[in-house]
């Protein structure tokens, strides 16, 4: 995936951590568009049928379709015409890794995959998790800090590998927003919605407002910002 994943976990979860790491490697081997032999790559070029791939690929495709329907087509598993469900897979993989640690008995941990974070429980007794949001217009600085518990934070924007998020309706890179941060309970949808919101641009605000349980903060290409009405709950 080219993503660095970082875990913040209690010491007793060492075994579960190993399982979570193996899970992430499996996801990479199966879904990576950078590997020619992944199911995603082979399916994408028509070398195999869906039935010949891991069943999780079908699950992911169905989910991508659902998010696409909920977003007026702004979320897609075929951005720019090529098959790439990464917008869903990354958040899903991280959320699943965090769930493995919960299943192993940890009530407080976070998993961070390249800046998309799933936090479980508190940071510590009476302590909230603190997630810095990079300022896309001032490299090397943070625009703000969000705090919370049992939540997920995902940011899409030009700060990630350039303008690679394509507006599915125009086929061109999305440029209205410099970045948008979505906060929700589960990283799978939070991450998918962040990608979607960035592609939507100005329309994202009303769209995220209409979603139950998700809030957003965006910085526009001009340097102004907006946030959805419930976002304040996440500010320290």
């Amino acid at each position: 995936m080219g993503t660095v994943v970082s875990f913040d976990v209690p010491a007793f979860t060492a075994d579960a951590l190993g399982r979570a790491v193996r899970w992430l490697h499996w996801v990479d081997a199966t879904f990576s568009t950078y590997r020619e032999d992944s199911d995603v790559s082979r399916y994408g070029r028509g070398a195999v049928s869906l039935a010949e791939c891991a069943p999780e690929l079908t699950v992911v495709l169905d989910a991508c379709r659902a998010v696409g329907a909920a977003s007026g087509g702004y979320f897609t598993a075929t951005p720019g015409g090529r098959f790439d469900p990464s917008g869903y897979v990354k958040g899903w993989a991280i959320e699943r890794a965090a769930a493995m640690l919960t299943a192993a008995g940890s009530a407080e941990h976070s998993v961070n995959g390249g800046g998309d974070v799933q936090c479980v429980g508190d940071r510590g007794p009476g302590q909230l998790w603190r997630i810095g949001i990079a300022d896309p217009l001032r490299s090397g600085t943070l625009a703000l800090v969000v705090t919370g518990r049992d939540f997920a934070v995902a940011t899409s924007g030009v700060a990630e590998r350039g303008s690679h998020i394509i507006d599915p309706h125009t086929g061109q890179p999305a440029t209205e927003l410099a970045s948008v941060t979505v906060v929700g309970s589960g990283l799978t949808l939070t991450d998918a919605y962040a990608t979607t919101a960035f592609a939507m641009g100005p329309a994202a605000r009303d769209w995220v407002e209409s979603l139950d349980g998700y809030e957003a903060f965006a910085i526009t290409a001009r340097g102004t910002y907006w946030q959805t009405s419930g976002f304040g709950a996440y500010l320290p």
Partner: protein
Amino acid sequence: MRRVILSIVGTVAGLVALLSFKSHLPSVPSASAATSGSAGTSSAGSPASSASASSSSSTVPGEFPQGSLAGKLAAGETAVNGDVATTVYGPVQIQLIMSNRKIVKVAVLQQPQNTIRDIQIGEFAFPKLISETLTAQDAKVDAVSGASYTSAGYIKSLQSAVDNGG
């Protein structure tokens, strides 16, 4: 105005020079193993990045003189020219002034002359990466959302800095 930031990781056998260009030039980490002709067993430069940390992304730590210093050596100093490193933006060559097996000065003999348009935020110069570390540590955050690092050698240490700093 072009400014060059030079970070040197030295070994006994030679030199690995990492170069990055500030501001309107792309940042190019390039490695060049340069064996000095006569310096023989001269010992290494500092093992870690010598670019000093700056909390402002507009401050450039360490500007180095252009052109050879070989004609202006003090007693006990020797000039060591690195190999020319070929980068995607052009040739780069540095010169070290050694005294008592230590690097005392650095000069740039060759640097790319091409003007390259601004690049995406995805390409980072070390000073930017370093300043990001400081900012994240200052704010005592557990993680940073929204930035991405293409310098593979830096990714781990930045995240661990945040991990350890919190």
